[in-house]
């Protein structure tokens, strides 16, 4: 409890339904914690409110019920101590790559000299040195994603929230990005809350996997993944113990997919 960076306590969330129907209950009594320096992956079926959790942690959305605490502090406004890596890279198209990466430092009033140095470091760490003056539209999808990650790492946020960050990438780029993220996270000792729908990705990257159920979703299980690091993301099955870890997650997750098969749920994404 004491070393928890993020603590979700009895989270419930309703979203207004179209027309005069009763609001849709998306999250129903969900509690878990993210410990300092840990990589926590959240998986669950589509529309179960995974992304909603991240929005709450960032202070962009107030839960209908329950509270989110960041190092004990109740989050009731925009939380500037987190970093957010969205599904799409969302670099600002009107700024060059280096201006994009520099922006958080600029907004936080850090001096020019330090900004320059940290931008160069951050770009080097994601392998984008030499592309400083390119606009995002001139970069490939993978490079934009790297830029997006550099923009988050540069201000050393206390927690990094990632919302299916590699979902839109091709399979090869994706593996490379997973590999690099693992390295970066380890080097920085970062705390990461990572939403995905890919069990392999969750198992190969995370220290623990939080599994959410169908809407209205609650916590099905939190499964620790005790694989040695660094892990091989290119051939995950080569990691000793990988199969057992995957099975542990899959055995819980499978039930959700069966339920889904029998009674198709509504496809309204919040």
């Amino acid at each position: 409890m004491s070393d928890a960076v993020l603590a979700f306590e009895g989270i419930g969330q309703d979203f207004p339904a179209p027309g005069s129907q009763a609001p849709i209950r998306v999250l129903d009594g969900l509690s878990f914690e993210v410990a300092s320096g840990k990589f926590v992956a959240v998986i669950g079926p589509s529309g179960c409110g995974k992304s909603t959790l991240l929005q709450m942690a960032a202070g962009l959305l107030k839960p209908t019920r329950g509270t989110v605490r960041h190092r004990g502090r109740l989050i009731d406004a925009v939380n500037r101590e987190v970093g957010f890596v969205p599904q799409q890279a969302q670099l600002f198209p009107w700024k060059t790559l280096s201006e994009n990466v520099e922006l958080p430092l600029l907004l936080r009033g850090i001096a020019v000299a330090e900004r320059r140095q940290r931008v160069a470091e951050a770009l080097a760490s994601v392998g984008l040195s030499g592309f400083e003056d390119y606009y995002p539209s001139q970069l490939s999808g993978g490079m934009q994603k790297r830029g997006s990650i550099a923009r988050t790492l540069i201000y050393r946020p206390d927690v990094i929230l990632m919302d299916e960050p590699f979902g839109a990438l091709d399979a090869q780029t994706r593996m490379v990005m997973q590999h690099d993220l693992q390295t970066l996270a380890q080097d920085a000792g970062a705390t990461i809350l990572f939403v995905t729908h890919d069990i392999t990705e969750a198992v190969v990257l995370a220290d623990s996997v939080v599994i959410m159920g169908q809407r209205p979703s609650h916590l099905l299980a939190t499964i620790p993944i005790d694989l040695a690091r660094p892990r091989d993301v290119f051939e995950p099955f080569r990691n000793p113990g990988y199969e057992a870890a995957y099975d542990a997650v899959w055995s819980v997750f499978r039930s959700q997919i069966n339920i889904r098969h029998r009674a198709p749920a509504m496809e309204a994404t919040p």
Partner: protein
Amino acid sequence: MNDLVATAEKPADVTVSAKPRGDWAHRLLVLLPGIALLAFWQWSSGRLIKEIYISKPTAIAQRLFELFASGEIYPHLWTTGQELVMGYGIGVAAGILGGYALGRSPRLARIFEPYVMAFYGVPKIALAPLFIIWFGIGVGSKVALASIMVFFLVFYNVYAGVRGVDREVVNLALVMGANQRQLTYHVYLPAAAPYVILGMRMAVPYAVIGVIVGEFTSSIQGLGLFIHEASSTYDPAGVFAGIVILLAFVVGANAVTGRLERRLLRWRKPSGQGPSDI
């Protein structure tokens, strides 16, 4: 950090090779219909249609030369120029401020949007006589008329642009640490810039229409008055000479705003996406 990536990801091709020869051919192609039209006009004047109705290009050029050589046109140009610049400037400024305010605040928008819509529907030309009464027959009434026509165009473009800013981008900026002022400067204004510029480009001809209609209605000096007098004295060459000057102004202003657009929106260049040109 990874060789695989360095080779796999190359930046998109951004260098568009300039082809001067193709450029000249293109320009010639653009000029061709205009030259053909002028030639036909010149030929048909006096042959197919009486010259008193349509004048002819050489006579118009002659008249233009006289107007500038004698200096007769300069007071008119000065007056109309002032009206255009002031009317356009005020209209654009008010449009950007109003559009931005309503675009940012849904509450303000709910209250004021219906009023703006209602006034938008009023035919501005019908206001011309009223404006003459309110602001006199001098520069004021023309500036008012031009700026109100410009305002609505710019307003709606900016309003749509600001409202269309991706919520996720705004949220990202907030989490990164932006305050309201920084949000305006780093997110909303640049995101809305394509719309602001589109509105500004579209508004140029409307400023001209506003000013000329005002001058037609009642004025002491100005190009509109000059054209009006020429037409009431059966002087088609004078009318066309006035129109040519207005045309030159619109083309010139369009070139200036086009330059501004390329400058401010250079980030959009390679893909060329964004609001469509109307």
